[in-house]
């Protein structure tokens, strides 16, 4: 079982990502990490994968809108969103087919339960065995819980990703955490999508998933495509 990121030249260079891989995506604010995360999920969905997106910054409906507004021909029942935002805003929204509500980003127990429920549904009821889990973002969770707590949570769920031969993508804000935090969390991941740059342009590369890191590529996000330059 292998996965791709949906970024063709990088996918060619790393030659497919084996099931059970956990990837940290780290980059500065405003570099398009939300879009990149959704695009990685999208490229799974068009290949009949399922996607579970844990959203700690945007209400679940906004994430769902991202997919719906692009009028993508993807199976809607393959998307599961764990919404950690809506209930902290004081809205008592109930769970829906696509969106399950966690109480807050502090509620790691609840987030874990909702992830497991989506995995159970995709695996056991729908027989979809290729699933992508995207947590966007760990930085918000780290604002509410200490490093050790987040590490314990990730230790369990990166293990579950391995057991299920799924693909995990975990977003983290560059510059928001100290080196110790990043180094500690890195231990849990098999590879990294690194993003650097400024308002003049951003570059990305992938490290840890091939014998040597890919070159840095300037990129531009165009709808559901990431166009690399250089």
């Amino acid at each position, binding site marked *: 079982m292998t996965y791709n990121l949906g970024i063709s030249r990088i996918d060619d260079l790393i030659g497919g990502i084996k099931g059970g891989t956990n990837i940290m995506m780290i980059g500065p604010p405003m570099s398009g990490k939300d879009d990149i995360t959704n695009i990685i999920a999208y490229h799974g969905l068009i290949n009949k994968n399922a996607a579970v997106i844990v959203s700690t910054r945007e209400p679940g409906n906004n994430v769902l809108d991202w997919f719906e507004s692009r009028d993508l021909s993807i199976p809607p029942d393959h998307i599961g969103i764990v919404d950690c935002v809506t209930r902290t805003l004081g809205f*008592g929204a109930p769970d829906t087919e696509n969106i399950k509500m966690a*109480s807050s980003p*502090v509620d790691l127990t*609840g987030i874990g339960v909702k992830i497991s429920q989506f995995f159970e549904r995709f695996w056991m009821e729908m027989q979809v065995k290729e699933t992508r889990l995207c947590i966007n973002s760990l930085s918000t969770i780290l604002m*509410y819980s200490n490093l050790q707590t987040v590490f314990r*949570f990730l230790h369990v769920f990166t293990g579950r990703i391995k057991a299920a031969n799924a693909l995990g993508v975990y977003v983290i804000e560059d510059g928001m955490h100290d080196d110790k935090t990043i180094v500690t969390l890195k231990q849990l991941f098999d590879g990294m999508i690194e993003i650097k740059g400024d308002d003049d342009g951003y570059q990305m590369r992938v490290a840890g998933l091939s014998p040597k890191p890919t070159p840095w590529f300037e990129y531009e996000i165009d709808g559901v495509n990431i166009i690399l330059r250089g």
Partner: protein
Amino acid sequence: MMKTGIPTLDDHLHGGVPQGKSLVYYAHPGVECNVFGMQTVHRAVSEGGHGIYVTSSTDPRMIRDQFKEFGWDAAEYGDRFVIVDGFSGLIGADSPEQYVVSNPDDIESLTQSIKQAMEGAYEPSVIVFESLSTIMDLCGEDETLDAIKEWNKYAMLYDHVVVYNFTAWPYSEDTLAHVKGDICNSVILIGGITEKVIFGQYFGVKKIDWDEITKKCVLFKVLKPGGIRVYLPKILVTGPFDAGKSTFVHALSTRAVSVDRLGTTVALDHGHVDHRGFAADIFGTPGQQRFDPIVKLLSGEAMGIFLILDSANTDDFVRARQMLDITETVGLPVVVVANKQDIAGALTPEEIRKELKMTNDIPVMPAVASSREGVFEAFDVMVERVLEANSR
């Protein structure tokens, strides 16, 4: 005794939790745990008792909404239900609650609010901690363990029952051993059945210090509304052609579907039952001989079998025995449903037992499935038998 309100659990606890004692719901990560505490406090308050709910990771308003999702209206509890707000302080939000923890990541601050709430309770109450693991994450493992001892002692003074929801993240072995072992009077283990992913959940008593322990695990499901239901994943409904199997499945189920042709089941009936704290998926087989291979297929992994008979059609009784043999489920609980008791010539359950040469340990239940008469009584007997079989 304070009842937990979790189906079958109070029986395993020999009536519930004695006043002044503590209980921990000890859950594996990814398995639903908080609903156990919620159902326990709901049970206490809805029976006229008092409840204190200590929240750590959820806005109190949302707590009340969560209760509502399960069909429990916290507004009806009035002042018999109190929230100790250990969340709002974390995000710097105002709280309308009577008891607010000013510093949720300081165990002393939390303890102070909890003690105030315990003192303020009119009478012995149940105190439920939404998430002990969140408290541990915020305040530290050792500090929390020490505090639990203090809370338990304090609760004992007032005859309160303390209930903790705890998710067993990979804390230190010592911490997990304490939570699972010596720190509370009883431990209920909540786990997941895992094969690549968690696809089933169970609970069982790990420890009680006021009576003998019955070590058995029970599968459960969480329904909204409804809460925790003991879950029987597969009950087979079989019997001869036209005995009323599909009618029985539909009569018993909250929702059901049949694969049939011209009114005759050609593949299966499937129904979901939600009755008195128990949930079950029931599968009805076709009755015609030409579908016998399907009967065998459907019977795999069944936990119990309903054998449906047309009470007036003795000619089919041989076929009924034969169908029971086809299921190849020797040793599983069987409940015979003597259906169509309302038609002329129907044999009584005892007469049917004689005709079938069945021993007394197999219940024969009278029923009229078309009017739902006797179907739930038969289900109750099935549940009893399945639980009995699983405890051996």
